[in-house]
């Protein structure tokens, strides 16, 4: 059981750090609450869907911004979607980056948009990395027979 305790401690520290550094916010906490016996893989499913969606959106955004004549409405709608999903999952930094992106879209500033896209991508990959690590930790704890510690 030491392993479990150690893993759990690791998990706690990691996730606390994520909250502290602003990668995740309360919404993620809510998601964790929704995971119960009837829905054991809820968080995993949501996070996977988020990854899928986000990658699609990022590709679409890149394509849209490459166009000779940029359709800002299209770009805006993609960013809106991205913002929606990131806020639903609690990816705070991604959400903030999306908000900045949105304002550049409204001003129709292509340079700003490109920069924002880079920023969003950067943040997204960061949080993806973190979430994958987190999920792996969870799996390890479950595999070792322990329970995922409750943060609330």
């Amino acid at each position, binding site marked *: 059981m030491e392993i479990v305790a150690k893993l759990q401690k690791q998990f706690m520290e990691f996730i606390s750090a994520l909250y502290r550094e602003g990668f995740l916010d309360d919404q993620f906490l809510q998601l964790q*609450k*929704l995971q119960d016996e*009837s829905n054991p893989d809820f968080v995993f499913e*949501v996070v996977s869907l988020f990854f899928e969606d986000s990658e699609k959106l990022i590709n679409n955004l890149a394509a849209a911004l490459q166009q000779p004549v940029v359709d800002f409405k299209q770009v805006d*709608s993609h960013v809106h*979607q991205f913002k*929606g999903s990131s*806020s639903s999952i609690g990816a705070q930094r991604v959400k903030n980056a999306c908000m900045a992106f949105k304002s550049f879209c409204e001003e129709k500033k292509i340079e700003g948009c490109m920069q924002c896209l880079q920023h969003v991508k950067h943040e997204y990959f960061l949080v993806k990395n973190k979430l994958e690590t987190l999920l792996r930790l969870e799996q390890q704890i479950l595999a070792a027979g322990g329970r995922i510690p409750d943060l609330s």
Partner: protein
Amino acid sequence: MGSLLRMNRLLSSIVDSCNCIIDPQLPADDLLMKYQYISDFFIALAYFSIPVELIYFVKKSAVFPYRWVLVQFGAFIVLCGATHLINLWTFNMHTRNVAVVMTTAKVLTALVSCITALMLVHIIPDLLSVKTRELFLKKKAAQLDREMGIIRTQEETGRHVRMLTHEIRSTLDRHTILKTTLVELGRTLALEECALWMPTRTGLELQLSYTLRHQNPVGLTVPIQLPVINQVFGTNRVVKISPNSPVARLRPTGKYMPGEVVAVRVPLLHLSNFQINDWPELSTKRYALMVLMLPSDSARQWHVHELELVEVVADQVAVALSHAAILEESMRARDLLMEQNVALDLARREAEMAVRARNDFLAVMNHEMRTPMHAIIALSSLLQETDLTPEQRLMVETILKSSNLLATLINDVLDLSRLEDGSLQLDIDTFNLHDLFREVLSLIKPIASVKKLFVTLSLSSDLPEYVIGDEKRLMQILLNVVGNAVKFSKEGSVSISAFVAKSDSLRDPRAPEFFAVPSENHFYLRVQIKDTGIGINPQDIPNLFSKFTQSQALATTNSGGTGLGLAICKRFVNLMEGHIWIESEGLGKGSTAIFIIKLGIPGRANESKLRFVSKLSENHMQMSFQGLKVLVMDDNGVSRMVTKGLLTHLGCDVTTVGSRDECLRVVTQEHKVVFMDVSMPGIDCYEVAVVIHERFGKHQGRPLIVALTGNTDRVIKENCMRVGMDGVILKPVSVDKMRSVLSELLEHGVVLES
């Protein structure tokens, strides 16, 4: 050869007949010939120059109607000239050609001159008539000039009048009006003196009020009945008066002859009387007199247009004075109002202060007075329980009675003031009506039996057992009224009867304003308390319910009442939307007190006021949402999954859709709630709400619609409300929030997040 000869013969005959040919064989006529030569030359010259001059001058003058004549004349003269010129060559031997030319010229000359002579016959009369016309036009021009002069004068006058009027009407101050009138008139007409005589208060004299030259005229007065004054007042026109009349003696008589004086009346109109030309009688109208004097040392006369001007000005002055009077009146009224307002304001503030002082007093007294009272009553009653001598017992009983009385007095006073403030509210609750009556009876019975009075109670069979109302206050009313009945009856009986008031018994003829409106959830209780007591003087009946009044008869008995009881009862009855009155046939004939109040019927009555629950109690949390069918519409996959997870966690049966069309396809009556994400771009979501309303109508089975939005924009909220959504929630939604939202939705049918 023959023709040549003939021609020669013809020529010589012509030459012979030509006067202009001088016989060349007379050398002594050389001088004559020379002079003739020269004269002919000059004649020709003159003849040629005349047309040139004519042409020149005609060209200069623009108008000359007879050009043709000139041409003819010109031609005639030129030809004559030519003739004379050619003559110059015929003095000596000349060729045949010259002769021919000469002949041609002469012929032409003859022609033209004849034509010209004929023309002149027509032309000369015309030329003569031109002259006549010229004279006529000159006369006309002079006439027009004169008329222009007159018009200009009139226009000047008009301008003066306008200017004067403007000056007069530009102020609403009486003195300024009159002063300005005089000044302007004096200026316009270059008057020596101009004066205004105003009627005095008595109306019997005219007093000199304003003059042009003197700033403050001495109070000259003339009686109003002078003939000259009557003459002026009798017409609305300007009247010439003698400079010696008393009204015109304004200046000290100097060396010069006074100039012409005119006078005109100035109507002093009442406020409502503006028709200057429509005056029926003279005697009721007041006039002022304006006197105008021309300069004495000029030979000026009053012109018609000047007189007209004066008349117009007089009228204008009258109107301006009326306006000034109106203004004065309205200013006075306004000042009065302002004073009244100030006074009222002060009174209000004082009243407020008084009320506040009283409330403060009451608030303090409420507590301060009751506490000692309570102590006295409690301790006295305790004292009663102990061993006491009869004297001591009597003393303690008196103390107790007095303090109870005092306590009642305090309560009454406090209640009444609260009732009057309107701050008293009834404590509505369900209680047993029958029990209430029985309790009153049991309270009264001891006192009544001491006085040997019979007390009976009858409750009608249709009187409900349980009712909704203010139990305590109803008891107070009953006790008060029954207590009075007992108090004021020395012998006999007191009967209390209560029944449900039917429509006929709801109307009291004495109180036609009281109109009871029975409804499904309420009924009117009618209670009659009849006693055989001393009765009430009919005169006193109206004052019964007034505060602190007690009739003389009652005052003699040791009633020990505050006089407030009935007043308080009346207030309570009014609060219960009822009516109370007392009937009596007179002194010694007993009296009946009747009151009707509105009570609620439990079971049928719904809570009239929906109490707003902002925080839900724990009980609601236990509500199970198990199997509650809900529909979630969101175009964002992640967001959709999260909301679904949330609702599934709470036990709902969740269906998810990603678009508007899908939503409309899938939604059925079984879905109890539809959660709609309205942060989707475009306004499709609102349309869905409208369609759902249309499809499922207004009846209870309709799914409730709740909007989820990440944006607390007021516009979004308004849009949601407009399309008839049942709630708006701000994302992100926590588990607890969703739980409370669902509870509130299912309980109240609406949720609003503030």
